[in-house]
């Protein structure tokens, strides 16, 4: 065990040594600078952009993707991938909607159902990846297809309405003027930050992504950590599905289509490296906000959806390019 801290410390020290101060600064705050620049640009083009209502609006809209992206960040740091998030959202959506019917179960049952469904899919993913030694891409691709199918089977392909007010509060309500989805998003962000930066578990996650063999030799239970990582990602997809369902007041088997890609994009834009070992929660949140700001700003300016997609593609590619350059410098 004690070997491990030297392993991780060495890798991060080696990275910092040769870089200039400016480069370090940009590496740390680059995407934050880009986010602020983007906000300034949007404000200049469309003055309505920068009112408090709209800012709250953007964060609330990005809460669902942001929560998924945080889970995906853990996965990508271990140099894995999770393609199943969007479908897990749909599966959670229809199951939660059944437990959230007006006048049936108390609210906590629906919340626990969301956590259970999400985590169960994650355990399944993690088990097959870590113990079955199957590539994450394949396992989660399978889950992506199967979970969507299960969602359709469970709901008969139809939306499920009639959700209780207390449940809808989770997506539509406010506490002290702050929308509930934002509060949940913030709590998850903080918990995840602590998990990744202040615990042994977090250290192991980075260690596995940096060098799986070395981590294993240093005594990390790689199998266990991987299963936990995918379970956590699944759990967060479940919570995201719950919020989405509460927000649109309907359990939908087609919900969350392509969300997995938006979540991966948010993580990547936020500086998470697909080769593993690198990534932060703060970066991912900023990545999600960049996507949110862009979508919102282009909606306000009535720029066509076609352009919106093109721009998003360009931003993702540029972010990965910057990331690749950073590693070359090392």
């Amino acid at each position, binding site marked *: 065990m004690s070997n491990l801290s030297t392993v991780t410390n060495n890798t991060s020290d080696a990275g910092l040594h040769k870089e200039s101060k400016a480069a370090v600064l940009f590496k740390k705050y680059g995407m934050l600078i880009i986010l602020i620049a983007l906000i300034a640009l949007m404000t200049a083009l*469309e003055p*309505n*952009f920068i*009112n408090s*209502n*709209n800012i709250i*609006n953007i964060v609330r*809209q990005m809460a669902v993707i942001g929560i998924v992206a945080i889970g995906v960040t853990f996965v990508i740091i271990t140099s894995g991938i999770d393609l199943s998030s969007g479908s897990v959202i749909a599966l959670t959506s229809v199951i939660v909607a059944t437990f959230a019917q007006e006048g049936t179960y108390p609210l906590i049952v629906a919340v626990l159902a969301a956590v259970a469904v999400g985590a169960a899919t994650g355990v399944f993913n993690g*088990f*097959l990846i870590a*113990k*079955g030694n199957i590539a994450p891409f394949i396992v989660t691709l399978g889950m992506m297809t199967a979970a*969507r199918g299960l969602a*359709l*089977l469970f709901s*008969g*392909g*139809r*939306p499920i*309405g009639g959700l209780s007010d207390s449940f809808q509060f989770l997506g*539509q309500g406010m506490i002290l003027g702050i929308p509930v989805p934002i509060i949940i998003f913030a709590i998850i962000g903080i918990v995840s930050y602590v998990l990744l930066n202040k615990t042994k578990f977090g250290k192991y996650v980075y260690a596995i992504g940096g060098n799986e063999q070395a981590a294993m030799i240093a005594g990390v239970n790689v199998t266990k950590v991987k299963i936990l990582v995918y379970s956590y990602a699944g759990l967060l997809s479940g919570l995201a599905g719950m919020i*989405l369902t509460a*927000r*649109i*007041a*309907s359990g*939908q*088997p*087609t*919900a969350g*289509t392509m969300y997995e890609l938006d979540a991966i994009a948010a993580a990547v834009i936020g500086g998470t490296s697909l080769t593993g070992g690198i990534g932060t929660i703060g970066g991912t949140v900023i990545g999600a906000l960049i996507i949110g700001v862009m*979508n*919102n700003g282009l*909606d*306000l*300016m*009535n720029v*066509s*959806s*076609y352009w919106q997609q093109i721009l998003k593609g360009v931003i993702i590619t540029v972010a990965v390019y910057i990331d690749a350059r950073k590693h070359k410098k090392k």
Partner: protein
Amino acid sequence: MKKKVLGFMVMMLVLTSALAGCGDGGSADGEEKLKIGVALPDFDDKWLSYLQDGMTTYEEEAGNIEGIYVDAMNDAAKQMSQVETFISQGVDAIAIVPVDTESVGTIVDMANGADIPIVVVNRVYEGIEDATAYVGGNSIDSGIIQMEEVAKLLGGKGNIAIMNGTPGHEAEIKRTEGNKQVIEENPDMQVVLEKNADFDRAKGMTLMENWLQSGDQIDAVVANNDEMAIGAIMALEAAGKLDGVVVAGIDGTPDALEYVESGKLQVSVFQDAAGQGSKGLEVAAKAAQGEEVEKMNFIDFELITPDNVQTYVEKWQ
């Protein structure tokens, strides 16, 4: 450890075979049934699931039909190979809801070449006369009916925001085209905002929230389907701005009818999914038996407003 993996594998196998078992209903009675291959574009689509229900209901009533339902998952190439399979299976007739209106021409030619009657349901395409028959509406009409009612409610003037479905979708193109035809006839009406929200409630809601922040005056939100319209209503309601905005959808889904009943959704257009499905299968069955069939079988669109919504609520029961 190996045992656990094995256990999982076995569980998966049991699960898949159990699920597969749900598929075939088992038609063990001795008499020959008419085999009709039904090629649908997307089992995930809610509206199409009502159309499929119409087909299965007709199948049960008729008793002499065995429908084989396949899902192309919105992939035109996949649909083509599914029809090829139907042909090699030697089905008596094919009913198809085309994935897209371009590739369906080739598919119809394939069926014609094999001398198997083919009935195109729900979506019209250029060259429809080559098919044995068409059953469905004319998408552009739904857009016209929808916008005419909106124009009436607004007194022929106002700012319109149009929410489009998934880009390139036949329903997206034609419904919006119908909308715009009516707007052109009313010089005091103009499209101030137009954007895609992919027929999705959550996306419609997000788009409406953003539009509301733009500060533009919006008198009506006209959506390509009900789900996006409901999303817009929820955003407008949350912002306390639903009063004074006309919201219009298309499809008349059960969810949407509730919104029409409460007066929040003022316009929807009923496209009789079950009616198109049952009529489609009926025409295919007739053609399979060599009977003469009508070439164009139009199932009319109907306007839904708070005044007549009860009729449609009863239809779903």
